[in-house]
């Protein structure tokens, strides 16, 4: 599939987080940003369908909703 190139402007803090996540996940910046875009679209689609984004910790028996504006 063909790809297109763009320049992304990030703040120092954003770049720091991007670097941290890349190191943690073993991904380069492009791969991580593509993952983020896919996840954002997936979450947005479910929210538009009326679903909620929930986090559950089975060990602590906790469940919480992540409010996405």
């Amino acid at each position: 599939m063909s790809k297109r190139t763009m320049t992304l402007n990030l703040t120092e803090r954003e770049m720091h987080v991007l670097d941290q996540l890349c190191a943690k996940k073993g991904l380069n910046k492009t791969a991580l940003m593509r993952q983020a875009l896919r996840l954002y679209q997936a979450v947005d689609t479910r929210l538009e369908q009326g679903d909620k984004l929930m986090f559950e910790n089975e060990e602590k028996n906790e469940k919480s909703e992540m409010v996405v504006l």
Partner: protein
Amino acid sequence: MSSTSSVVYLRDGATGQLVQAELHDSILQRHLDDHKNHWNPLIVAQGEQHGHWDWERKWSHFSAQLRYQSFAIECNGQSQGLMIVNTIKRCRIRQQANKHLVYVEYLEAAPWNRREIPKWNRFSGVGTVLMAAAIQLSIDEGNHGRIGLHSLPQADTFYRDKCGMTDLGPDVSYNPHPLRYFEMTEVQAAAFIQEGR
């Protein structure tokens, strides 16, 4: 939707010779038409476990979402295999837990290519080529070949023995049936590629 294709090889079941095929990096309408018009009547007649898979409906849903990618194999002007993968799922094996992998949502070979129906054994290697495509996508995505999937019972042996994946057992959380979950590590992926499975 457009696609790019690369050359792959299948083995002709009648002659034993390798034949050239095309691996497309997206399912196209003609592949869906082949499934509907040529595969489905045979699948329904056999009463197979995934006879209910409606690829047209599946792909109309999945193609709008970036996290899904698809592949199709063509040979002799006809679709020989289809696959949809999900690129945002994560690993379950402890040593690679929470790392990204390519998850195979659906993989299906044309009914005339299936080992369990020898009278139709036309081309072999369709499943292997599609698994190799999933591994290559995982590598391209920076996931080092890690892939995962839930297997239909008749395919358990293929994923465990032929592909060398780790069998994590029945997944009771998988709806509607607790299918077995298989995962491939970076090392297993390298072995799969190296051995040309």
